[in-house]
């Protein structure tokens, strides 16, 4: 279990963390969500003693990280994709880490095998692609068979198979009763993997909740319809004031013909029946929860550290 209490940290002119408090419980994957520069990495670094907080503390299974007798058995951390000396072989990098905590050599070969690095283990870490480096960082985190996993954006640079592997790894560790803290700036990623949710923006915890609660609260459902008869569709809902029919942009997943609409405030089953009775031709009829990402964006929008201008404004 990882307990973070009242962490504050100021870097020169910027308050990086402001009274950050949350818990990553055993048996759960805790998603740590926030835009770039929100303080996710700083929190994780403070947890692992790399950064000394101005106030507050973090406990790993009830103790400060630096006081643990077997740090690698307590925490496996991925803080950066590139965390090995460029001129050292992957295996020597892992072996050196294993030596510090008296972890046997065969465990090194085990994690190399698990992360799929066997064929490149003797190669220099500097020649690795981002994805391979990420796997090497994950391998290092798994060395001590740790009770807590701290993963800072671990899927950056991974191929789809690697992404799925990391998700499964997180779930697997949680099922075994271990604590997993997974940071990401993508709501969709966290929603797929995490149980609990901690949202941070500009160093402040904005919300501490569970993924299912967040989904229930924030995802207003909508129906996506593609039809060649837009007038008929609008006429169907013209009397129902709570229902909104909005023209939507076509995505590659949509059929190439017909017009695309998003309908909010209507139930899927009822709508389908009404369409059938009215004889409306539909090429596509899907229920969407897409607004999860929007809810997250709405929550963090004012907290975004590096705000971008709309594309149109940039190119003007």
């Amino acid at each position, binding site marked *: 279990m990882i307990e973070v209490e009242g962490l504050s940290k100021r870097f020169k002119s910027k308050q990086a963390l402001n009274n950050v408090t949350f818990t990553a419980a055993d048996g759960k994957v805790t998603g740590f969500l926030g835009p770039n520069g929100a303080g996710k990495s700083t929190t994780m*670094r403070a947890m*692992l*003693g*790399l*950064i*000394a907080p101005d106030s507050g503390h973090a406990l790993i299974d009830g103790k400060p*990280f*630096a006081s*643990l*007798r*077997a*740090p*690698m*058995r307590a*925490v496996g*951390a991925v*803080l*950066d994709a*590139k*965390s*090995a*000396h*460029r*001129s*050292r*072989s992957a295996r*020597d*990098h892992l*072996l*050196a*880490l294993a*030596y*510090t*905590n*008296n*972890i*046997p050599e065969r*465990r090194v070969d*085990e994690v190399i*095998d*698990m*992360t*799929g690095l*066997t*064929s490149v283990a003797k190669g220099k870490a500097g020649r690795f692609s981002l994805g391979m480096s990420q*796997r090497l*960082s994950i391998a*290092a985190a798994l*060395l*001590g*068979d740790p009770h807590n996993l701290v993963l800072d954006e671990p899927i950056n640079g991974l191929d789809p*198979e*690697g992404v*799925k*592997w990391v998700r*499964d*790894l997180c779930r*697997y560790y949680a099922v*075994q009763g271990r604590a997993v803290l997974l940071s990401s700036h993508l709501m969709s990623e966290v929603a797929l993997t995490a149980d609990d949710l901690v949202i941070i923006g500009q160093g402040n915890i904005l919300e501490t909740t569970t993924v299912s609660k967040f989904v229930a609260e924030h995802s207003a459902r909508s129906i996506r319809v593609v039809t060649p008869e837009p007038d008929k569709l609008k006429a169907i809902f013209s009397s129902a004031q709570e229902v909104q029919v909005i023209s939507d942009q076509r995505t590659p997943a949509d059929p190439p013909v017909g017009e695309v609409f998003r309908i909010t405030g209507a139930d899927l089953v009822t709508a389908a029946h009404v369409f059938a009775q009215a004889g409306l031709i539909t090429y596509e009829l899907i229920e969407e929860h897409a607004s999860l990402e929007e809810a997250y964006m709405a929550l963090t929008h004012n907290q975004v550290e590096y705000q971008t201008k709309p594309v149109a404004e940039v190119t003007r």
Partner: protein
Amino acid sequence: MSSNNAHASANANVMNTQSITGRYQQRSSSRRANRWSRRSRLSFLGSLKAELLKLQSLKSTWILLGLAAALMVGMAALSAWTITLMATIDITTGTTLDQPKPLAAVDLWAVLASSGSTAALVIGIFGVMAITSEYTTSAIQSSLTANPRRGMFYISKSIAVALCALASGIVGILLASGILWLFVQGHDVAPLSDGQWRIIPITVVGFPVVIMLIALMAVGLGGLTRSTVGGVSAVVVLLMVLSSVLAIVSMAVSQISWLGTLAYLTPDMAMNNFLGASINSEAVSSVTSQQNYWIPEWWQSGLMLLVWVAAAWTGGLLVTNYVDVK
């Protein structure tokens, strides 16, 4: 179990969910695995072993240590060649002597002792890089996550670097002695006088130790600056620039000749003066003995070098211990 293995080997190169869970179940059920897990803990010896492996696994370590030893041998060979050549020439007339003059043993020892000053710079670069490469490659994050006791990390790294430098110094002085011995074959050698015997232990023991001390000072400078450029610059300034500047200024401005004494307090002059054992040997000393300022004794210079090393190393320890790793 067998299907798990087959699965794992078929996907040896791919992250595979089934193979990982299979392996976990395999491992968690095996008593063998639990045994290592219970025994695994942070230890100083483990940390030292890790640091030795880190150095040994880098090609740059072998290149720099090899270069240092080669420079010691090369410098010794060059000086030995000069001495033996000079012994065959009459300095006043410039003609070749029929019978070479006998060589003074003290000169030969002095040659040996002074052959490390160039190598010290290379050893300095090695010491700096041993620690700054952790920061420049972000390897420091994984190192400190595996071993959050930064003092232990710094001390074990220092010991590993010191051992490597010591080995390089010992190999260097042994090879240099061999070369020197080859050069003086066929020459008469005048034995050491009573007051000069101390140059033997100072050279044999002192030389590798000094090389080791320079490496430790460099580790400290690397720890202080956390940047290869900064650390190497600091080494170059302390081992080359500082003493030269002070010596030149003191020569130019005779009123403030005490700057000459100050020059003797710099690390490289302290090192050379210590190894020179305060024995005036014409073979190595380029300065005349008529100085109007105080020159420290060999042991005082040794202490001065220790002060430099202690200051730099402690500074590195403090920065490593207390400054955030970003």
